[in-house]
């Protein structure tokens, strides 16, 4: 069987005809398989949803109880058969519950990796290399200028700033699902044990992480705090809130932003960030290229991000590669912005 007969790109997303399901569909479909809970991948309104238990829980938290007609949970490594098609979830290391989805038919295997990163993250199961024939990769940071370095060093930078400016508040912009909890966990690993404050929009998801036995230490809502008491503290907030009226409750805040985009100075300056922290939930250039090679796949499909550079690189390595031209992904931040500025 040809791989494009197993999975093919259609306007709603990646479609498997024999299994009659879409992966991360961008519009309502009958049967959806969801890789992870970020809003550009996990949307409400599908008939049936198959995902990891964590992803289902997160969708419920973010979209409400009736986010889908029916749900089915899949464990990592568990095989699910739909006729000739076999489905298997493997850890993607992106956020809690994130999965790559291996779709096999006879002896051909296609892996849709969703968003992934191949570096350590104390808040989720590490990425697993899945040997396959076709590897579908994201390309969010698909340019060789994106090298994320060690996240621990970036957190040290934040702590050095807190030590230098004890009278100021430190405000860290971070996506509320995954990034925020990872930054908190990394701070704890560096021995920072003071309470960490949360913007209202962070509370629900972060408490969910804590309920999943992810240790984040003492967390406090920033709501109701006195301005003077916020001196010397660290607060996590959605990126959109860090330039909002909301920041006026903090004493002379230092605005940090934890994102892979912070590698490029123009991006950081554009956002008015004072302390860029290069911490990413996505694989960097070295991560993408190493993963592609490790899967052993002879054919690479590239989606959302800098497809051109990654496709070009694959070809120089003798791999068949093409961009998938799927639309609707990679704007987790934008879709969060609207929802959260209301909550703030």
């Amino acid at each position, binding site marked *: 069987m040809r791989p494009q007969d197993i999975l093919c790109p259609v306007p709603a997303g990646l479609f498997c005809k024999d299994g009659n399901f879409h992966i991360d569909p961008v519009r309502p479909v009958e049967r959806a398989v969801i890789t992870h809970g970020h809003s550009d991948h996990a949307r409400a309104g599908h008939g049936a949803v198959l995902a990891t238990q964590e992803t289902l829980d997160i969708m419920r938290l973010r979209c409400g109880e009736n986010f889908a007609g029916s749900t089915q949970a899949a464990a990592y490594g568990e095989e699910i058969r739909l006729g000739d098609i076999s489905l298997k979830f493997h850890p993607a290391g992106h956020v809690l519950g994130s999965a790559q989805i291996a779709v096999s038919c006879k002896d051909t295997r296609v892996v849709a990796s969703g968003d992934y990163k191949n570096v350590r993250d104390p808040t989720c199961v590490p990425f697993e290399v899945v040997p396959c024939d076709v590897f579908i990769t994201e390309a969010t940071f698909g340019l060789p*200028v994106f090298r994320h370095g060690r996240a621990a060093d970036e957190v040290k930078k934040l702590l050095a700033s807190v030590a230098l*400016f004890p009278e100021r508040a430190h405000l860290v912009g971070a996506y509320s699902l995954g990034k925020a909890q990872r930054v908190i966990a990394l701070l704890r690993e560096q021995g920072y044990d003071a309470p960490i404050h949360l913007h209202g929009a962070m509370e629900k998801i972060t408490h969910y992480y804590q309920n999943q036995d992810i240790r984040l230490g003492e967390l406090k809502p920033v709501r109701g705090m006195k301005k003077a008491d916020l001196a010397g503290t660290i607060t996590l907030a959605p990126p959109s809130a860090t330039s909002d009226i909301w920041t006026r409750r903090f004493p002379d805040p230092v605005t940090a932003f934890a994102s892979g985009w912070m590698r490029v100075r*123009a991006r950081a*300056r554009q956002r*008015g960030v004072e302390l860029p922290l290069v911490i990413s939930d996505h694989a960097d250039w070295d991560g993408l290229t190493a993963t592609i090679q490790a899967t052993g796949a002879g054919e690479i499909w590239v989606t959302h991000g800098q497809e051109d550079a990654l496709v*070009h690189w694959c070809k120089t390595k003798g791999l068949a590669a093409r961009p998938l031209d799927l639309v609707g992904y990679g704007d987790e931040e934008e879709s969060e912005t609207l929802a959260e500025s209301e909550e703030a």
Partner: protein
Amino acid sequence: MNRFAQLLDRLAYEPGRNNKLRLISAYFREVGDPDRGYALAALTGALSFKHAKPGLIRNLIMERTDPMLFGLSYDYVGDLSETVALMWPQAKLAGHNNPPAPTLAEVVTTLHMLGKTELPSQLARWLDELDETGRWALLKLVTGAMRIGISARLAKTAAAALGDKDPHEVELLWPGLTPPYTELFAWLEARGDKPVNLDPAPFRPVMLAHAIEETDFASLDAADYIAEWKWDGIRVQAVAGRDARGDLKARLYSRTGEDITNSFPDLTPSLHLPGAIDGELLVMREGRVQSFNVLQQRLNRKLVSPKLTKDFPIHLRAYDLLGDDQNDLRELPFGERRERLEAFVEKLADPRVDLSQTIAFDSWEALRAARADPAGAGAGDDAEAVEGVMLKRRDALYLPGRPRGPWWKWKRDPHIIDAVLMYAQRGHGKRSSYYSDYTFGVWTAGEDGEQLVPVGKAYFGFTDEELLQIDRFVRRNTIEKFGPVRHVIHEPDQGLVLEVAFEGLQRSPRHKSGVAMRFPRINRLRWDKPPGQADRLETLEKMLKDEQNKILVTSGGG
């Protein structure tokens, strides 16, 4: 080098002056000699070596990366040094064999000695050894494109903070010091004696005036003060002194102590007597002082051509004498210094240096009248370049900084117009959650009838309370958003009128309206005024024409 790069990186993003100071001081405290000294030199612009061309950097990266990947990356990042710093393929060596990253001192001293042919391979070695930020800073340094966004003064202030010293003291020593400033740091850390400034023509920290308020006059006695015109030029200190061999050295300093001698070669021959004059730099044509707009043509020029010095002849108007040959006069009262100054200028007998005249007055009312009509009160043809009056206590010693009381400045009233708020933009740093930068416009006849044309931008002048009010108004009356900019409603019957104060006007092809304001600020919020009644462009054009005529007449058509 990596640590210095981290500092530059932080400074590049930090908008607050005091926070920048803290960052630099922390660096000086943490890093030892000689690295911090070279850092101080880099921050004050005191380093000099032959810079590498961008072509060299491009060749280095082309030899190491796929051209197409480089092209896509460069397109994305938009800055050559940054692109190369980020995509440089780091040599993967066994950990314990890695050479240590170069120190800043190593980089600076090597660059001084290095021949042109050795530069590419040396750069490549360093790039292998440094991290991303280190590579970025190195490339900015070697290409001479380091824009740190801090002044030399700020770096010196940060150094002074190391020993709780007054930055003026550092400024005073500065001309006699060279990188890596080990003796300076030793003194600041109380490990060594105060360095001696052996410069024959050193800078002396300047004395500044407070702006006087109406309420201040009640407690001041007119008889205690000498008044003189406040010139709209550049405050300078012109110093001449003899070196060890007895040769006369002349230097011109800005008010912050920056050596600007080379920009005014036409003035140096006039400083032929040892002494230190505090005065105003002006352009003088046919015996008349020109406006600031004319002087501006002489400023910030890299090349000072004979044509420039001929068309814009420079002049020094002296108002104080800080040193007379070997004598330090700063401990003398101003009245006595003034007498010495008059004698000094007379002895100098140079057409390029003259005395700033005092204004005769016996009461504050008389001075107020003189300030309102400088031409009639003795300034004569030079009245155009008068921006107010200066008051100096007869018994005032020359004290560095801005002591309250001995010196006052009493500026002429600014020009005022009523303009309409058109666009608002978020500020930076503390003001990043406020719409604090305002573009305002005035009415003019357009193709579709009356329309507003932007004439300027202002981001200060208002109180904190007013800022809150404008911010609220902007948020409630936004028509459209473009990134950080908000289009605020501005119709004849809806919108906010801002009373804008400014010092002068200039013609400007870069502005749609054709005019640019000098030093515009928000004077008052006119909630009471409907936007339809704000000023018109014709009003500004008339002011401009008046000013322009004066320039043309006095410059003799040149």
